[in-house]
């Protein structure tokens, strides 16, 4: 039984100029073997050295690509025709072409990647030639940077200006107990170097700002947003859109996490989802609201996964999809996202064409312009811990309203304070005295400022916010109490 194989122009010199050859076999693979036996010059152009069909060689059985049949095992019957059809590909040199080859040690290290057809040698070299900038070396940045380093990303940048604190250790695995008090960058660099010395770690001990963001982003392929506040989140988003860098986004709060990939070409950005930030204080930070320690492990690793997929160009990235993870119920949900043509940054007629003042955009309270008064730096709506202490020592009896949650109140408190969590205030504010000065207090001053605003809106006039909250109180006045 003979079948016909159509030969494309560039291979005809090997088949005595014939555009079709008769061959025998029961499967596509057998027909090709018969072909290359008769015309041995074809073999190295059709097959790689390890005997696999080259990826730019397409074989069609009648009109069907054998990749969608049973590949070389596809059975053939009499009258079937095989065609070899080239994909013609090429292009300018990329970073991969100029990337150094992998050393023997690296080949061993990445062997579990190299045997994945989706990655292989070419993909691993792509990873080595690539770079990711992590904004923050905290909860999300820790697992993301560690896995990216282990996976062989060539260059990892980290922007952070914090110092390792005991309260970080419950989730920020880049840092260990002996690192408390060290800069997070120093500890991150040590950890990553120990994991994989082939990774170049660039550290930037600065606060990301509108002035430095574009310069910091420029040398990197992907930006990984591990920030914990809205001004920086909008700044990262806008800088990614303006510089055309994909943003592997993640955020966490209590038991819930979110992830997506923003600012890819044609894909949505964070502003398409949230054009405006929430009012300040409405969404508490992790420091105020708490966070499950393992949660950033999940979300940060999702971000790292997406960064790698974007670099490798494999799979379906989280573009146009907003993933929401609920750890308590162990459920993933997905929202569809579209680029908003009206988006002020990535829309058709953008109004934001350079980086703006993100503190102001997010309605953060501007620094008071008035000169600080002697003894502490309070304003008419703020009271410092020193001023409060002085009042108490002088026998005054301000009503100290603690608006934190009961579990926080169990950790530390100002003696004599009364607990009404912020969420309960709207139905319990009648419990407060109208004729006494009220000092509103929380952990750091964010929620209590909101409580103060609320109380003023319902007629209380003599309300002040305790600057720096209980943390400042413990630091400056009562170090015997624990902090969290």
């Amino acid at each position, binding site marked *: 039984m003979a079948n016909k194989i159509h030969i494309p*122009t560039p291979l005809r010199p090997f088949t005595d100029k014939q555009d079709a050859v008769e061959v025998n076999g029961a499967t596509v693979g057998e027909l090709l073997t018969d072909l290359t036996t008769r015309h041995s*010059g074809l073999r190295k152009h059709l097959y790689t050295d390890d005997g696999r069909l080259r990826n730019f060689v397409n074989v069609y059985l009648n009109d069907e690509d054998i990749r969608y049949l049973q590949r070389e095992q596809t059975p053939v019957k009499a009258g079937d025709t095989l065609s070899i059809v080239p*994909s*013609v590909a*090429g*292009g*300018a*040199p990329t970073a991969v072409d100029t990337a150094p080859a992998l050393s023997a040690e690296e080949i061993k290290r990445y062997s579990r990647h190299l045997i994945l057809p989706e990655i292989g040698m070419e993909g691993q070299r792509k990873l080595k030639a690539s770079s990711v900038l992590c904004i923050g070396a905290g909860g999300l940045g820790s697992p993301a940077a560690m896995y990216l380093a282990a996976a062989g990303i060539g260059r990892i940048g980290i922007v952070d200006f914090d110092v390792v604190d005991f309260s970080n250790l419950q989730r920020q695995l880049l840092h260990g107990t002996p690192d408390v008090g060290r800069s997070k960058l120093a500890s991150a660099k040590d950890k990553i170097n120990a994991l994989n010395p082939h990774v170049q770690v660039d550290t930037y001990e600065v606060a990301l700002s509108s002035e430095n963001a574009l310069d910091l982003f420029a040398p990197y392929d992907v930006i990984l947003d591990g920030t914990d506040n809205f001004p920086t989140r909008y700044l990262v988003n806008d800088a990614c859109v303006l510089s055309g860098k994909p943003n592997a986004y993640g955020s966490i709060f209590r038991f819930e996490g979110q992830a997506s990939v923003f600012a890819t070409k044609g894909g949505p950005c964070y502003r398409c989802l949230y054009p405006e930030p929430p009012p300040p204080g409405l969404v508490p930070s992790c420091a105020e609201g708490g966070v499950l320690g393992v949660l950033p492990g999940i979300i940060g690793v999702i971000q790292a996964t997406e960064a790698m997929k974007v670099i490798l160009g494999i799979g379906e990235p989280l573009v146009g999809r907003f993933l929401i993870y609920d750890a308590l119920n162990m459920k993933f949900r997905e929202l569809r996202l579209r680029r908003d043509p009206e988006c002020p940054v990535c829309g058709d007629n953008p109004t934001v064409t350079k980086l703006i003042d993100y503190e102001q955009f997010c309605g953060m309270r501007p620094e008071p312009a008035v000169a600080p008064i002697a003894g502490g730096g309070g304003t008419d709506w703020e009271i410092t811990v020193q001023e409060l202490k002085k009042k108490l020592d002088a026998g005054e009896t301000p009503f100290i309203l603690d608006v934190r949650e009961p579990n926080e109140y169990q950790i530390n408190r100002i003696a004599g304070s009364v607990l009404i969590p912020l969420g309960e205030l709207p139905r319990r504010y009648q419990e407060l005295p109208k004729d006494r000065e009220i000092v509103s207090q929380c952990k750091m001053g964010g929620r209590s400022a909101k409580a103060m605003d609320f109380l003023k809106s319902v007629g209380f006039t003599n309300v002040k916010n305790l600057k720096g909250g209980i943390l400042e109180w413990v630091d400056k006045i009562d170090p015997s109490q624990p902090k969290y």
Partner: protein
Amino acid sequence: MALHLEDGVDESIRKHGVETYPNECCGALYGRDGVVSATFALPNTTEEGPRRRFLVRPQDYREAEARAGALGAELLGFYHSHPDHPARPSQYDLDHAWPFFSYIIVSVRAGVPEDMTSWRLLEDRSAFDQEDLTHG
């Protein structure tokens, strides 16, 4: 080895490279016996980023080959542009090259076409051999 470009061929390749800049262009070369008499622009269907890659899909290749018959000519090879890169083949070009085809590369810098070169794969696939380009 030499490849001769008839009048208008050089210009049409350069023009295509300018039109698609900053992306890569690609197209087919037709003629006979080392003389290119016609070109045909093809869609760049790469999904890896057209600034650095081009891809002619199998169905477009089939049409390109069928067109040779209609023109009474042979498919001699393909051209593509290297936006803001020299007109020299990359490792990727080498990895994906077919034997006997001529591969013309035109460098387009900041939207302006510059050098044009032509290359052929060595039979052992180890490298490209540059072939002379003549005009007119």
